């Protein structure tokens, strides 16, 4: 990677390159986890008093793999990361990182890993260069090795700012320095705990670019936690979806999405008292003919809207009952006032969905057709959408006084 030292460069390269690099350079033939896995967890559990923050998680990450751990704030991502990084002892179960046991061989684990913590653990009174030098010394690097490594990680940094106090850095600059510091000792395995939470899109793109580069050019094993769907989708070879301390599903992002179906039709039912007026709104868009054509809907086109109408759980249940029997609908689920219809052919199915709802006198707010996302997978698994908490960067404090989310 050439030097990305100015914000505009980062923006152009980040926004332009990241999606293509991620997709084209992601190796489908990444080694499947096996006995030589970089990270292996078995029944990993952590309690905080009565709270079961992590509950029996099994996972394996192959060498050179980017493993994305996706879940909302409080799901248990940080607790698992802190256990794997030796900052927290498991209540039950165990894990090896780099072939070393995280409890019995914690010192060896620390030598093998680099960690970027969620809270951005920097010292504002140091300059960027001082922080990197100290970090290198803590890992036993000689003065020459430290200077060589600073030079090597400098593309990640804003080199012009490296001799400025960290307290003057922007959030994005701090995050990149944090990543550089975690790489100073040339680790084999990198843990990134929500590396882009709270960052602006430019800085986020720059971090994505670096993660992609570490993975594609240097074969580093990366364990990435995130609450951003698009981040897991773009960066990870495999994604683990975690919620309430449980690993709900695991697989390649596309595999996970295929669980839902090829397409998803999302019907939002109007709240309040419904009736013919609501349905009339749908018909007003053009009736069944108007929404039936493929060109009329697009991949995420809104095809019907009612001005007012009714809803409630009874209405949702009726809508589910109506749609479950529909040809082409492979799965129908209710989530609040939404009903999702999984289907192999969204373009062909959306029209019958609209007609069926209209025929059942159900008040529709809107209907949309789109490809499944990891949020749909999460919704399917947990019954909830992922709600991003942009302020989660500092993490909470658990009973032990250590960060927790």
């Amino acid at each position, binding site marked *: *990677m050439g030097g990305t030292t100015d914000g505009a460069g980062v923006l152009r390269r980040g926004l332009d390159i990241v999606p293509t690099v991620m997709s084209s350079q992601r190796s489908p033939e990444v080694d499947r986890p096996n006995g030589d896995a970089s990270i292996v967890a078995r029944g990993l559990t952590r309690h905080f008093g009565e709270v079961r923050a992590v509950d029996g998680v099994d996972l394996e990450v192959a060498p*050179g793999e980017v493993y994305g751990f996706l879940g909302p704030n409080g799901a248990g991502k940080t607790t698992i990361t802190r*256990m794997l*990084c*030796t*900052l*927290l*002892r498991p209540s039950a179960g165990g894990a090896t990182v*780099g*072939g070393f046991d995280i*409890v019995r061989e*914690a*010192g*060896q684990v*620390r*030598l*093998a*890993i*680099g*960690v970027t*913590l969620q*809270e*951005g*653990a*920097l*010292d*504002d*009174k*140091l300059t960027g260069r*001082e922080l990197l030098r*100290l*970090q290198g*010394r*803590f*890992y*036993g*690097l000689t003065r020459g*090795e430290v200077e*060589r*490594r600073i*030079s*090597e*990680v400098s*593309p*990640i940094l804003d080199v012009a700012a490296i001799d400025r106090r960290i307290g003057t850095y922007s959030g994005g600059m701090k995050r990149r320095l944090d990543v550089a510091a975690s*790489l100073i*000792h*040339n*680790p*084999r*395995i990198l843990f990134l705990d929500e590396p882009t939470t709270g960052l602006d899109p430019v800085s986020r793109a720059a971090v994505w670019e670096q993660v992609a*580069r*570490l993975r594609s*050019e*240097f*074969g*580093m*094993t990366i364990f990435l936690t995130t609450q951003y769907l698009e981040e897991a989708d773009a960066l990870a070879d495999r994604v683990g979806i975690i919620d309430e301390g449980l690993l709900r599903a695991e697989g390649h992002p596309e595999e996970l999405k295929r669980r839902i179906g090829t397409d998803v039709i999302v019907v939002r039912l109007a709240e309040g008292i419904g009736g013919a007026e609501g349905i009339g709104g749908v018909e007003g868009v053009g009736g069944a003919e108007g929404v039936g054509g493929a060109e009329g809907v697009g991949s995420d086109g809104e095809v019907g809207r009612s001005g007012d109408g009714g809803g409630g759980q009874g209405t949702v249940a009726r809508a589910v009952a109506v749609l479950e029997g529909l040809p082409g609908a492979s799965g129908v689920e209710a989530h609040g006032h939404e009903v999702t219809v999984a289907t192999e052919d969204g373009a062909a199915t959306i029209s019958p969905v609209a007609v069926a709802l209209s025929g059942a006198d159900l008040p529709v707010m809107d209907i949309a057709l789109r490809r499944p996302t990891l949020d749909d997978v999460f919704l399917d698994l947990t019954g909830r959408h992922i709600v991003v908490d942009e302020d989660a960067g500092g993490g909470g404090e658990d009973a032990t*006084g250590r*960060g927790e989310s």
Partner: protein
Amino acid sequence: MSETSIRERTGGSGSGSPGSGGRGSSGPDHAPIGARQMGFWHDLFAVGHRAVILLPRDMAAIIPALIVPIFFYAVTIGALQDVAAFANIGLEYKAFQLPLALVMTVTGISRAHALVLDVQGGYFDRLLLTPVNRWSLLLGMFVADTIVLLFLSLPVLALGLGLGVRFATGAAGIITFVAIITVWGLAYTGFPYAIALRTGNPTAVNNSFLLFFPLVFLTPAWMPRDALTGWLAAIATWNPVTYIIEGLRTLVIGWDGVALGKTLAAVGGIGAVSQYLAFSALKRRTTP
């Protein structure tokens, strides 16, 4: 020093992060770089180095600790030296008060507020993720503490000498005086460090000065012990700081092995308690 390299254990399969030369690179300029465990003294020096380079950037927290005792010393001498002349305390009041001024200067001075900010901001976790020796995380702070204690105590001592205080024990007495004050300052640091590590709360560390008042002022601070009466005399007799102040006063008059022995015992006793608390808190904080 024991040096354990992760590359040695794992066959040198460095993944090679940016520009590392990648796998299989050779030659001295491209030898794989990897983390090593270096041992206690290396780590102590590294942690101490960081603490020291931060000192000039934290003068706003250090300078007030110099102003307050100088102010107290000047005001106390100005207000009481004529009264003290009637009390036959065996010393000029400016010499009598100098040990108290020094004890006030150094007691409670530490880098605990910097440590608690490391804990709160996450930098302490960054240190815990490295192979750094755990004891050095606290002992390294003592390096900076020693510098600060000397930085603060020497001007106060110089003020006393400038006002005419003379040590009958000569230069050796002055050096002993400074050494005892510095060791006392270090011994006491265990309390604020223990609070910093236990609580991770800067406010709690700032409030640790509350311990300072009874320890320093329930002593023969303004009058000799035999001039104290009632409950204050009883408490002063049991207060270890009494014997630190008295031992320091004897250095102005002449060598007194018994008094200095009591001083060292008092410093050692309080130091043992405070450092036990600090290192227990460190162990708790660094145990996963």
